[in-house]
């Protein structure tokens, strides 16, 4: 995994896309490996969607090159690249049936009718919509349309499948179900999937690797675990989950260095016992308590104006217990390994 043997599925070389004065994508370098489930994560306007659109061919880079399995596709129109897209609004053709929608790519390639029908049936079975071929898209639910869009793209056996906020329009339950299903489908078909999302949980759940975008640049690329446990920048630490950032004098007192570090709230424990040598220990005062059922979130002041967020699971405590902690002095501790230094 760490050392990809083959040509990357997608390679960005110093790719920029400017819209007038705005640098939507700014000198991005990126490699997506063959067969990977890859997420482009970032807030809106961070350039992730523009990157996806440039891979699809809807947008062309202002400068730099994009390679699809080694072939420079930077200036090829969408219909000349073997890449397919699942659109955010699904973009199903309303005047065609589900079957005609799925068969569209084959129809354009003038594949024989019998072959078309066979492959449409296979695809609809893959996305669990067997028997829906004669319906119109308007007769389907959001989740079903999503599946049709997926089938319509996959039937062409693209080298890379692009998904633009594929689950954005679905409700939470359906979204979680589709996350699992998408992952399963990707395993079955073995195609490289690249998807764009602003939902960090979704990115962590589904992807093999994540690229975190901010202001047209990639902040960090890594596995979900790396991104979460070793955020490279303050932006990543803040965008992917919540994090405590500690810097300056206090950082020096804790770690011996002024370098900014991040520590995740769930890694900090409220204790009464003296910690062992490989643990960091701090005194603080509980400023606020939020009881959230499964866990409780504490805001602990460790110095004037410096608060740390701490999350503790309510394994043995009740709401009464935790809420009474407000205003009390506590001891905080965490394992030294859980500290992650930021690069900048």
């Amino acid at each position: 995994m760490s050392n990809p043997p083959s040509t990357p599925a997608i390679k960005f070389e110093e790719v920029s896309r400017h819209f007038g004065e705005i640098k939507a994508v700014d000198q991005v370098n990126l490699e997506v490996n063959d067969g990977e489930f890859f997420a482009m994560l970032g807030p809106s306007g961070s350039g992730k969607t523009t990157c996806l659109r440039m891979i699809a061919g809807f947008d062309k880079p202002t400068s730099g090159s994009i390679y699809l399995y080694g072939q420079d596709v930077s200036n090829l129109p969408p219909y000349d690249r073997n890449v397919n897209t699942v659109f955010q609004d699904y973009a199903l053709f309303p005047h065609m049936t589900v079957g005609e929608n799925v068969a569209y790519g084959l129809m354009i390639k003038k594949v024989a009718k019998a072959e078309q029908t066979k492959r449409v049936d296979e695809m609809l079975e893959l996305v669990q919509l067997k028997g829906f071929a004669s319906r119109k898209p308007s007769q389907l639910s959001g989740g079903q349309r999503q599946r049709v869009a997926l089938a319509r793209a996959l039937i062409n056996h693209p080298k890379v499948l692009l998904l633009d906020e594929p689950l954005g329009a679905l409700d939470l339950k359906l979204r979680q179900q589709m996350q699992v299903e998408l992952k399963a489908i990707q395993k079955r078909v073995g195609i490289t999937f690249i998807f764009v999302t602003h939902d960090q949980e979704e990115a962590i759940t589904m992807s093999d690797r994540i690229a975190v975008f901010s202001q047209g640049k990639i902040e960090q690329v890594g596995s979900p675990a790396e991104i979460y446990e070793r955020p490279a920048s303050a932006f990543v630490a803040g965008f992917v989950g919540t994090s405590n950032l500690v810097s300056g004098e206090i950082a020096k007192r804790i770690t011996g260095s002024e370098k900014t570090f991040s520590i995740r709230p769930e890694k900090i424990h409220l204790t009464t016992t003296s910690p062992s040598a490989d643990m960091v220990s701090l005194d603080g005062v509980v400023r606020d308590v939020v009881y959230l059922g499964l866990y409780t979130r504490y805001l602990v002041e460790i110095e004037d104006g410096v608060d740390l967020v701490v999350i503790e699971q309510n394994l043995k405590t009740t709401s009464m217990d935790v809420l009474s902690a407000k205003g009390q002095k506590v001891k905080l501790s965490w394992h030294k390994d859980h500290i992650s230094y930021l690069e900048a």
Partner: protein
Amino acid sequence: MLVVYLGSLFSLLINSFYYIDDFSGLIIREFTLRTYAQIFTPANREIFTRTATMAFFVTIASAVISFPLAYYIAKYASRRLKTWLLIGVTIPLWSSYLVRVYSWKLILAQEGILSYFINLFGLSGFLKWLLSFEGIGGSSLALSPLGMFIVFVYIWLPYMIIPVQTALERVPNSLVEASSDLGAKPLQTFRTVILPMAFPGVIAGSIFTFSLTLGDFIIPLAIGNSKFFIGQAVYSYQGTAGNIPLAAAMTIGPVAIMIVYLLIARKLGAFDAL
């Protein structure tokens, strides 16, 4: 509102079933189909055929001319340009219809500005050749069915451009992108996605251009030869001839034609995407 609207139509329908006494010229108020039978006399049949044929070609020409313009307005023009273009399309509707028709009479006249330019480009031979055809020709454009056709297309064009533009506006760009993403070249996308989705707009526009041409009597009066169109016939029957029942029956004619037209349009799936 509804009473006034449907009431007048109903009274029209009732009148079409009366007949006029040939001798006294009085309207006899009793139910009969004999007035309708008069529509099918060769002279009246010819009027219907002539008018419907004109309406058909005016509609086709309006659709063909409108589409590229509507497409440009809907998909390419910037927001500012779009506003200006839409104003440009509708400006003619702000001015008097009569004035516009009579200006065209002057434009198309033998010594008019159009012939001037045609001569300038050395195309007068071509024009003469066109005007020599029986059925569309005449002594000048202003006095020919061809000239009438040009004026009809000009006058009704906005009624086609606006619905087509609205329909194209409603085709999301993502559909065009999706088609291209699935391998379709621009022309294929146009044929398989854009055209079918804009078709209801074309049908909506054609309802205007077709029915307005069927019923108009000013343009055939001002432009073209002396051959009657339905509107003129209705006008003269209810006016000078005082034959209200026949005028009513001849008005029901276009209504019937439009109903058949809409049924065919529905069969063709024009309203499926609505």
